[in-house]
């Protein structure tokens, strides 16, 4: 059996306690925000995309549980430097895989909030 607190393994706690790319990017070319109606958690993303469609920089802000905050932090690290085509290829499986721990259906929603916000910021439909 996995560690009893598998969900709170070092990676998630580290990103929760010391998030990467936290804040609001100015100026930004893309922005989006959303909240999880279940728990009231909220995340906003600001991105700056350069002339060659590459994500030059990104920040996230918000309030939420360790899973949603760590997931957002990891996502910002992933998209930075990537082209929009590469960013658009990120799907829910990729996001869940990056967290590296199995999640219950309810906690998956926490983990996927930042991906929904990313899609909203890029002006895309919410579905995966």
């Amino acid at each position, binding site marked *: 059996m996995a560690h009893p*607190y598998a969900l*709170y393994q070092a990676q998630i706690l580290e990103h929760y306690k010391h998030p990467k790319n936290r804040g609001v990017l100015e100026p930004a070319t893309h922005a989006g925000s959303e909240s999880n109606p*279940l*728990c009231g*958690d909220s995340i906003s993303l600001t991105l700056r995309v350069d002339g060659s469609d590459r994500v030059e920089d990104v920040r996230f802000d918000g309030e939420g*549980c360790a*899973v949603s905050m760590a997931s957002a932090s990891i996502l910002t690290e992933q998209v930075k430097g990537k082209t929009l085509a590469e960013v658009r290829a990120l799907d829910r499986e990729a996001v869940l895989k990056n967290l590296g721990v199995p999640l219950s259906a309810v906690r998956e929603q*926490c983990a996927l909030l930042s991906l929904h916000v990313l899609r909203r910021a890029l002006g895309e439909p919410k579905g995966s």
Partner: protein
Amino acid sequence: MARAAKVLLNVPAIKADFPILHRTMRDKPLTYLDSTATSQKPKQVIDAIVDYYARYNANVHRAIYELGEESTRAFEGARERIAEFLHARSPTEVAFTKSTTESLNLIAYGWGLKGKLKEGDEIVGTVMEHHSNHVPWHFVRDLKGAVLKYVDVDDDGALRMEQYDDLITKRTKVVTVAHVSNVLGTINDVKEIAKRAHEVGAICVVDAAQSVPHMPVDVQDLDCDFLAFSGHKMLGPTGIGVLYGKAKVLEETEPLLGGGEMIREVHLGTAKWNDVPYKFEGGTPNIEGAIGLGAAVDYLSKLGMESVRAHEMDLTAYALERLGKMPGLRMYGPRDARKRGGVVSFTMDKAHPHDIASILDVEGVCIRSGHHCAQPLMDRFNLAATARASFYVYNDVEDVDRLVAALEKVHEVFA
């Protein structure tokens, strides 16, 4: 060492009645502290439902054969015992619905929207209501042009009663309030609020989802006009709720569902309603639900609601004392257990409520986290979410001790 709660209920014997409490959760005892969301069920309730299907299942009210007589007796017998439990004047003041939510919607639509409310009429609620006692009144406002007003709470979670002085006016038609807050545990002075409503000719509507399961409730003493609650929060099954109403207001209330059961006679293009409460019970009712709720009322009556209340008050006092000593933990609601029901909402400095609940789950401790369907109240306290532990007849000081031990683990993980 904190003082142990005085034994008022024989909790080991009660626990033995609940099959689910015999299971373990990841090799640990199941510590169920989410009865405010839904209660567990004793074997007496489960058996009553099985017995109905195994021995006398038949549709109620019109069958000529004996089987139908038996099911009708059991169904109406449940109504009688619920009426008695509430100290209603008559079983005809008790209508079966599917939930507290349906009962409150029936009042808002059937009494308010279809009958008694008009543009400019005022409805006085509170900021501590569950969403089910907010949203139906939003509909009434939107469709009728009624005006909504809300009484605030103080920082300890007590209703600011003095605000009723200004908020209740000659235009007030409905004053509605939760008897017990599902987040703060605050017990509201419904009797006084009903009196204030009646002074201006308004009706008093009580959301009793968190009071009827946990304390003696006497509708004649409270003198409220309507009172709503659910079966599943009081040891009964899901899908059954109750609308209590004084005969006068029930007569004024229009049914929502047209169909079988609710009619006296139907002709092409016309129908006459059945008597109260049957006119609200269109369609084949939830027979097993009513019978199960009747068995739950029997179970609680045997324990005695005074004892249930005293037990939960002691347990809450113990929990407030133990949680109060935990560093970085903040509780909401009245500090005095005599002023609150058995529900304790809290937050921790470094851990989000969802993370608290996840770690407690690993320890076999079930609590709730989130906004508890009370977002206006969360807004009032500037919170997105809280963690919430709640107690019932099958909980004891050991459950509180396990909660505290698990919270210490949360503290370690997030230190």
